[in-house]
């Protein structure tokens, strides 16, 4: 049986791994193939900071909350394994900041140690009057994707560097099942008006004294349009751009300025390091 996964970002690779883990014993001669025109470190997943945190509200979609929980628990279980560091997996505590009280998120019992911020903690963030503190997980794409790739390669999964133009193309080659994990460009394989790019731009800096994530929220303007700081294992990611419908993959000088100024206001200590060149 030939199963083809389209896409080699975190979704494609982890789907492939789950399929292989679950079915290779059950299905005789299972052949798993991964097709993508883009591999790590050039996928969308590589651009993400890697913080496990869903949107603030699941909007009643309980299935999503279950998926989130399963993911978190799976990763938490791997935290003490020897592979954790290779996977790019580690615990990270931090702050979510608001200008007004908000209801607790759907994931409050999934993360560790969820609580509201004390007045003294809020002193650190002038302009914000409410917030949460919790310990979550970081899963860095540039480590996790290679780790997944290695696991898959060990299991005999084959990789093809190729842009798939249609599902039919694969079926005509003899593929039995296609798993479409093509992310942003799924619309090219099957139109989906609900799928829109949410363009993000970030700045990576060297700021090793930052040990917490800080995500600010502006409920009026929407998610990720407000500054955020996420320390990785090597670099700290500064962000705060989310442009619905914008397909441009070029760096915008205006966005760079917005991110830098708003993050420096949030964390004055950032003003010392110079940002790495964008890209």
């Amino acid at each position, binding site marked *: 049986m030939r199963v083809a996964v389209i896409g080699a970002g975190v979704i494609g690779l982890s789907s492939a791994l789950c399929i292989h883990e679950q079915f290779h014993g059950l299905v005789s001669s299972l052949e798993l193939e991964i097709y993508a025109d883009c591999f790590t470190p050039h996928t969308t997943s590589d651009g993400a900071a890697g913080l496990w945190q869903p949107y603030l509200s699941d909007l009643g979609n309980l299935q999503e909350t279950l998926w989130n929980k399963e993911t978190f628990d799976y990763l938490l279980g791997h935290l*003490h394994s*020897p592979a954790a560091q*290779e996977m790019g997996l580690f615990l990270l*505590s931090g702050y979510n900041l608001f200008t007004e009280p908000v209801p607790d998120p759907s994931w409050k019992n999934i993360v560790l*140690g969820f609580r509201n911020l004390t007045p003294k903690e809020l002193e650190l963030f002038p302009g914000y009057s409410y917030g949460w*503190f919790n310990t979550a997980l970081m899963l860095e794409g540039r480590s996790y994707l290679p780790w997944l790739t290695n696991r898959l390669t060990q299991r005999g999964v084959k990789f093809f560097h190729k842009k798939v133009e249609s599902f039919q193309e694969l079926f005509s080659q003899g593929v039995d099942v296609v798993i479409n994990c093509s992310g942003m460009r799924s619309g090219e394989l099957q139109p989906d008006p609900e799928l829109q790019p949410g363009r993000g731009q970030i700045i990576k800096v060297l700021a090793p004294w930052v040990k*917490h994530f800080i995500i600010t929220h502006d409920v009026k303007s929407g998610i990720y349009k407000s500054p955020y700081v996420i320390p990785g*294992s090597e670099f700290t990611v500064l962000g705060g751009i989310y442009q619905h419908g914008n397909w441009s993959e070029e760096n915008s000088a205006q966005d760079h300025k917005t991110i830098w100024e708003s993050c420096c206001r949030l964390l004055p200590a950032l003003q010392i390091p110079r940002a790495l060149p964008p890209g």
Partner: protein
Amino acid sequence: MALSSERLFDSLGHFGRCCGVALLYHCLRCDGQTGKEKHTHSVPYFKCTDLCFNYVHTSGLQYINYFSKYGWKIFNRCGIWPYISLHSRTVPNNCKITCCWKWKHDVPCRKCGCSFLCISEKRLDFHATWQLKKKGCACPWTAGRLAGCAENHTLFPQLPVLSEKVRFFFLCLCILEMAAPKVAVVGAGVIGLSTALCIVEACPSCSVTVLSDQFSPNTTSDVAAGMLIPHTYPGTPIHMQKQWFKETFTYLFAISNSAEASEAGIHLVSGWQIFRSTPKEELPFWSDAVLGFRPMSEAELQKFPQYRFGQAFTTLKCDCPPYLLWLEKRLKAAGVQTYNRKVSDLWELHSEYDIVVNCTGIGAHQLVGDKKLFPVRGQVLKVYAPWVKNFIRDGDGLTYIYPGIHGVTLGGTREKESWSLSPNPDTTKDIFDRCCSLEPSLREAQDIKVKVGLRPSRQSVRLQREVLSQGGVKLPVVHNYGHGAGGFSVHRGTAKEAARLVGECIAALRGSSPGAKL
């Protein structure tokens, strides 16, 4: 307090050397009694430790003789003593002259901050009247003109009618008003440097010098992780420890939230303190001083299966060397000099300094013979593991993981009475294993370095005044040592208290000088 002639000469600065000065000190040896023409000592004048003043009977002729021996020129055209400009640091603070205070002025030149103090006294108005020339002095009171030799000196209207005595008094008064205590801080660890900084902040006119045989990165402080988690001193009242900790926390919190944070090495870090069995005291005295203190949830404790109870909180960490280097920079900006010097006996400083502050940490065992002070040897590893962002501390204080800016500190040991500074390889392996059992990902840590420090431990921190005396000469000392495992946690609080004690010493010195007779 007295001066050697070399220092006296240096202290006069450019101006003094041009114009010649009369520097008059009350002779401590003869109490000003010998006066008149000559003044004999068993040792030659300017080599003796005491300087004497004499009455000026013959318009300074005798002085001319004395001074000119040393290359000074007295400007004596007007038959009056010239206006003097002195380096504020050279004047001892325990001279006093009883006389009419009519000429008293009370503002030494701090206006321009220049090292020449300009006399400001409306009636005498040196600045306006004298056409003085000197390059480089930015003093706005002299409008950039100072010193100069033998040129365009206008007579001071008042002075010709003044008697010698009065003139004399006036000059001495100027010296007295300019007096600024000289304070030596011995020790350049976190305690020494922060104490020196507190002293200059509390007493800007003080002249503070730091003396130590070790500076960062070779102090005990450099080995420490610098976590703000207090150690309890059995002999110090809890309310005092709490106040010291709160003061330190508040001070560092403000810096961590400023643009200087990364340079100073100060940052917030969250984590857990875990216990194998529930401790007697679930709420330590500092729980409301740190941020977000609360017991750990069941889910959090699952990460540590052998532990029953835990506390989660956010606190501050001072990374060394950055913090010590930042303190040194602030001290230099405040005019504090630091010298690499081994002090073998505090008394050896009595001739150069008015007050000594003893921040020698474990060195106090030898320096002041404090047998109540004992080392508690700590070995730590500093490793590269930048994915570790939370601290983990076993409540027994022996095993801990503290993530810093450039490395993670893994510890440790608490070996009482061990003086060895050499790393022990078996201990290294033991520390590494204990830490990996709490945080398995540490197995991938790189670049492992081993360090050893001797915590200067004591039942209570020695923070008190003492007066050393030998042969009628006194030396006030302020002790600030014995912080053991809790130095960083209380350093600012104890430094402020030590600065306050230094202030008490200064007040005592000013209140108790011998009277002079003219």
